[in-house]
């Protein structure tokens, strides 16, 4: 298991587009990815749950990845929260 505390830097927060991007990128991996945000556990592979989380810019999120490719999953999330996947 690997984990990290990340801060969301996406310009407009994790709204629908970023959420879709995240879920699509995570889908091929087999690691389980859980986001801890405002006291709730969020399955990062569920588009609805990610959107329901309402993660805003500047929010801190604890990311926990578990599985064979957990390191790749964590790297992907680090990149994601830096906002480099924003295309707005």
């Amino acid at each position, binding site marked *: 298991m690997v984990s990290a505390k990340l801060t969301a830097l996406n310009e407009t927060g*994790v709204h629908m587009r970023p959420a879709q991007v995240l879920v699509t990128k995570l889908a091929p991996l087999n690691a389980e990815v859980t986001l801890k945000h405002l006291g709730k556990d969020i399955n990062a592979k569920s*588009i609805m749950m990610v959107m329901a*989380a*309402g993660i805003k810019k500047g929010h801190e999120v604890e990311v926990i990845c578990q599985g064979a490719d957990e390191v790749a999953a964590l790297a992907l999330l680090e990149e994601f929260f830096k906002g480099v996947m924003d295309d707005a």
Partner: protein
Amino acid sequence: MKITDFLTASKVAIQAQAGTRDEAIRLLVGLQNAAGAISDPEEFEKDILAREAKGTTCIGEGLAVPHAKSTAAKEPSLAAVTLVTGVDYQSPDGQLADLIFMIATPPGGDAHLEILSRMMVLLMDADLRQKLRAAKEPEEFVRIVDEAEIAKYGSETKTEEAPPAEPEGRILAVTACPTGVAHTYMAAEALDKAAQKLSIPFKVETNGSTGIQNPLTAEDIKLAPAIIVAADKQVETERFVGKKVIFVKVADGIHKPEALLKQAQAGEAPIYEGSGEAGAGSASSSAASSESWARGVYKDLMNGVSHMLPFVIGGGVLIALAFLFDDYSINPASFGSNTSLAKVFMNIGQAAFSLMLPILAGFIALSIADRPGLAPGVVGGLLAKEGLSFGSLLYGSPAVSGGFLAALLAGFLAGYVVLGLKKLTENMPRSLKALGPVLIFPLLGSLLVGLVMLGLNPLMGVINSALANGLNAMGAAQKIPLGVLLAAMMSADMGGPINKAAYVFGVASIASGNYEVMAAVMIGGMVPPIAIALAATFFPNRFTPEERHGAPVNYVMGLCFITEGAIPYAAADPLRVIPSCLVGAGLSGGLAMAFNCGLMAPHGGVFVFPVVKNPGAYLLALVLGSLLGMALLAILKKKIPLTAARASA
């Protein structure tokens, strides 16, 4: 924030037809535009489609959420459609989309993300999605969303920006009204809403007919900067001694909650020093006398009436049932207790009835002089009821009951006698003063009240008999106008003083053995909510969507004789609604009198119809009055243009 703040029924289309994704989007843009949420539909649609071009907004499970931050959006706004057959929306799971929400937000801010997040929390629930698809009309759709949101987040959402109220600094309120059915709760709700709007930490206790709810704790009171008492009857106030207390009518709680809260927050209220149960503060009358004299009398009277009502209701219905279960032919002279069943009902009912006047007098006195007033008041009330006098005791002249009027007199007399005794004992040594509540007030109070009542009863008896005989001997020429007048009074201010005056007269008439007056009074109070509900059902274009939404409840309110249901409608459009109700109620009251309908129970609405005298005619009177009220509402009220795009577009 609530989803239903942004999603109104006018922006929902149910079971709509759309062949393609773009048709569905155009339909939603149309709904937003019709509701005035966007300034330029073409521009907005372009922004929505531009967003779709970057990637589908379809989430899967047949759900799509097209959205745009657009300069054409005037305010954050939601629209929704359900489709008869889904459209191809490039869904990740290949399903056709048939449940589509459209979010419009102006540029900047987080509204967009918050709405989306909240919606997703709810829509994750497959049951909810299914329910929304099955909704048959826009109002139902919005209600389903609302209920799901309440189930998830609680009724009023306290989001992160409003941290749970710290206990210190909460403004407190107590609401109470004589019947404790409607006004108590309306005032509590109005205050609560206003407090939220002004973001003032607030707690309200209701003293309704079901007892005290959400009681203020000693801790609450200790910490509170000020307390609002919005009550038309006696409430427990000794606990507020030393606090800033604002005393107002319950109606003020309903009509000017914000002003009251601001006043309380600013601390513009006298320090309450109590009514002097222990006689501590010599200037104790300052707070009490700031209430106007008439309002004080009204409050005392209503305290008596509200405590008496359960006795009249229980007794009245039981006695009426006794007649219902009896056989007139056995012995007409003792009709009502011929069969054993009737006899049982009759005696229990009479036991309740016989307590009515003592209770009335006792609780009037209690309202005036607090607990020490109760015993002398009850004693005085019983003497009034029995009609005992010096003449009847010493010379054997017949005792004539002084009835309701004598009991009123006994109540006020007892209250002020005990107040006087309290004043007299105030300057006595401490050791003697302790004897006040345990010996002096009960003994001297009851004796003085008793003596006065023995002296006055013959006079009251004459007045009461004259009134009772007058009522009973009235011919149709007097009875019908009386019925019209009383019924119209009932609907004039829907629970206010005029209504209560008519109501108390009706109850007093029962106490004097005339039951027709009460029949006219109750029907007058039932017509306004029913007439409004009928009008909203058959002439919906006279009412706003919110008004229509609330209308079904008014059937129930009307049938239960809760006139207060009509208040929101009357308040919104008094010049048209009140006269319509007044005329409808008047007709019912007059007809009830003309048909010789009688009612022994002073409350209960449709539930006591079986024990009404001439129930069929009574029902007819109710129906005719309600229909007339409805017709007048339809004629007088202006049509509201239907902006609601009921789409089958």
